[in-house]
């Protein structure tokens, strides 16, 4: 395919039926690896409002988030972060699903949803606070309708389900009011599907018909363990026996992800109950900066997925329809550079709070023993290093 082709090719309309990708025939795809956009079909119709202009803004999301990720990785290498869990390769799954959310919706992330955070307006630097080790949280969940990161695999799916049960009790489901009806989305990985909590979340969500979308990014690996160890049937089917329909979407196709997530969210908001979306994608980088992928997967696999880079295909598409000329791309590059520099600056400026703040917010109400411990703490730190003396 000629990347410079300015006008859409005069081909028969592309449909979203399936992909010939490794995701198998059930996978929804709207943008092929070559950058051809499907224009007909159920899911294509759902995103017919995504004009080239909107798609350019998605592309911008993708590029900026990748830059954010790269900058964080670099900061970690330079000792400015304790750890970084990169998302390279998963940007489309995150931007597509994040952009499908409405303001009133609420998202529950794992520790890797940096691009979803981006769509929720969480400042990138806030995320670094956690990985820099200066905070355990980083942002106000209620300000962004985006929960704090959750490092214990699977736990957050229950919180999401409970939150959705609260939404039901608030009468914010199925009213038909688009500003009011609310969905919840729970992010989790392929490995997480094995945790009891995730299955229990399916049980509760199905039983109470809760407005929650389970969004599984199957990035093929749980650290060093391949998805096949967690399940020998496609993960989007995991919900079937719980009464939760599932759909597999090409997680490297930002358009398809947005379409599929929109449908699932709308179903939830309108009272249709929970649904499972499996975004079939790939963790292109290591699990975290502490990980060593050479121990468990080969370069060929990584290379084959590099072909399916979620950013590449959007650029190809935009270029193919003449919506991404070099000037625009260059400007975006500069914007990304500035973002990276800004994130870096903010990161370096981030100091840990005074140690005594660890005693704060343990409880909301008074707690005498802790107050005494804090007094001891303060006394210890106020005094000089305790003199070492023989018994008096």
């Amino acid at each position, binding site marked *: 395919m000629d990347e410079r082709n300015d006008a859409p090719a005069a081909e028969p309309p592309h449909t979203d039926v399936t992909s010939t990708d490794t995701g198998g025939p059930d996978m929804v795809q709207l943008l092929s690896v070559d950058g051809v956009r499907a224009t007909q079909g159920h899911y294509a119709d759902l995103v017919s409002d995504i004009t080239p202009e909107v798609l350019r803004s998605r592309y911008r999301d993708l590029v900026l988030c990748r830059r954010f990720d790269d900058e964080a990785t670099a900061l970690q290498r330079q000792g400015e972060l304790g750890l970084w869990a990169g998302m390279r390769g998963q940007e489309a799954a995150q931007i597509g699903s994040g952009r499908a959310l409405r303001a009133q919706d609420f998202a529950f992330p794992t520790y890797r949803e940096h691009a979803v955070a981006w769509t929720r307006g969480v400042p990138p630097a806030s995320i670094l606070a956690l990985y820099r080790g200066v905070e*355990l949280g980083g942002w106000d969940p209620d300000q962004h309708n985006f929960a704090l990161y959750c490092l214990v695999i699977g*736990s957050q*799916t*229950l*919180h999401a*389900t409970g*939150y959705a049960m609260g939404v039901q009790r608030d009468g914010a489901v199925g009213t038909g009011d688009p500003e009011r009806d609310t969905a919840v989305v729970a992010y989790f990985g392929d490995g997480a599907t094995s945790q009891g909590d995730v299955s229990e979340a399916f*049980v509760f969500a199905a039983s109470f018909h809760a407005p929650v979308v389970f969004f599984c990014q199957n990035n093929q690996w749980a650290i060093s363990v391949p998805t096949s160890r967690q399940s020998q049937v496609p993960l989007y089917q995991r919900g079937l026996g719980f009464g939760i329909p599932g759909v597999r979407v090409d997680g490297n196709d930002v358009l398809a992800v947005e379409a599929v997530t929109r449908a699932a969210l709308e179903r939830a908001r309108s009272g249709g109950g929970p649904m499972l979306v499996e975004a079939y994608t790939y963790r292109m980088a290591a699990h975290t900066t502490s990980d060593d992928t050479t121990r468990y997967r080969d370069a060929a696999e990584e290379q084959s997925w590099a072909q399916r880079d979620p950013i590449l295909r959007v650029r190809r598409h935009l270029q193919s329809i003449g919506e991404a000329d070099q000037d625009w791309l260059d400007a975006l590059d500069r914007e990304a550079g500035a973002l990276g520099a800004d994130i870096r600056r903010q990161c370096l400026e981030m100091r840990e709070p005074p140690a005594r703040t660890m005693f704060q917010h343990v*409880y909301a109400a008074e707690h005498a023993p802790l107050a005494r411990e804090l007094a001891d703490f303060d006394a210890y730190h106020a005094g000089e290093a305790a003199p070492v003396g023989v018994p008096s």
Partner: protein
Amino acid sequence: MAKALNEGLRAAMDADPRVLLLGEDIASLGGVFRVTDGLAKDFGDDRVVDTPLAESAIVGTAIGLAMRGYRPVCEIQFDGFVFPAFDQITSQLSKIRNRSLGRVGAPIVIRIPFGGGIGAVEHHSESPEVYFAHTPGLRVVSPATPADAFVMIQQAIASPDPVVFLEPKRRYWGKADVDLSVRPASATWDLHESRIVRPGRDITLVTYGPLVATALEAAAMAAAERSPTGGAGPDIEVIDLRTLAPLDLDPVVASVVRTGRLVIAHEAPVVHGLGAEIAAQLGEACFHHLEAPVVRVGGWAVPYPASRLEHSYLPDAERMLDGVDRALSY
């Protein structure tokens, strides 16, 4: 006490529409101990929720509900079944306020019928309080009387912090007059206050929950031995801790300063039991006042035994008095 708890829950639900109950068999059945009897009928299925059978999910969804502004009260059917929820309690519930810098609270109560003495089968007689008391971020309380239960359950629900609420199940059937007009705002005492339930001069006996009645029995037995002419039978001061986390040991310290001797009793194994911390703190606070080592009376360090042996496992008045005697004769 079951009835008092029922009334307390009802008062809390009346007072605040955000309060809702989650648990197994709590709606039509009213809970296996009938603590929630009638509440589903009066408050509806949305506020008294029979959940699927999964404790981790009960606590996990409660956290989500709390994030949405609700104040869930979870019932764990028996003490032995709280462990599937231990991860959600320990790693999520207890930490959420701190890690969010106070932005996200977790005003959740976890009600657990606990302890032995009802002749139950395995896993129905556990005393897991230390697991929770050792976990920063949680509060842990246990009422000993119907009157306290009525007030404390309301206080716990009103608390902005997560509270593990341990109900001494063998006292569920205990009856007493309860002043049903008390509300958290009108209570004359705080959720986290220990109290002297029986003053005494010779020795301090500290306990909580199910064993408060037993301790009073022991004190009465000792008193019965006493004669006006100065016969045997020590005058035992009994303190009901009520609050296990935070501990309120000031009354205990004040008591031991007077008596010089301390016995601590609980059903949980002695080793690393609540008594260990109390002994450690008293050993420091009353270093010069203790006339004998602190004596701990508790469950043995074995799995809770078959029910026909539980009388030999659980501290009874005799074993408490044996402890008292050991402390006094040191």
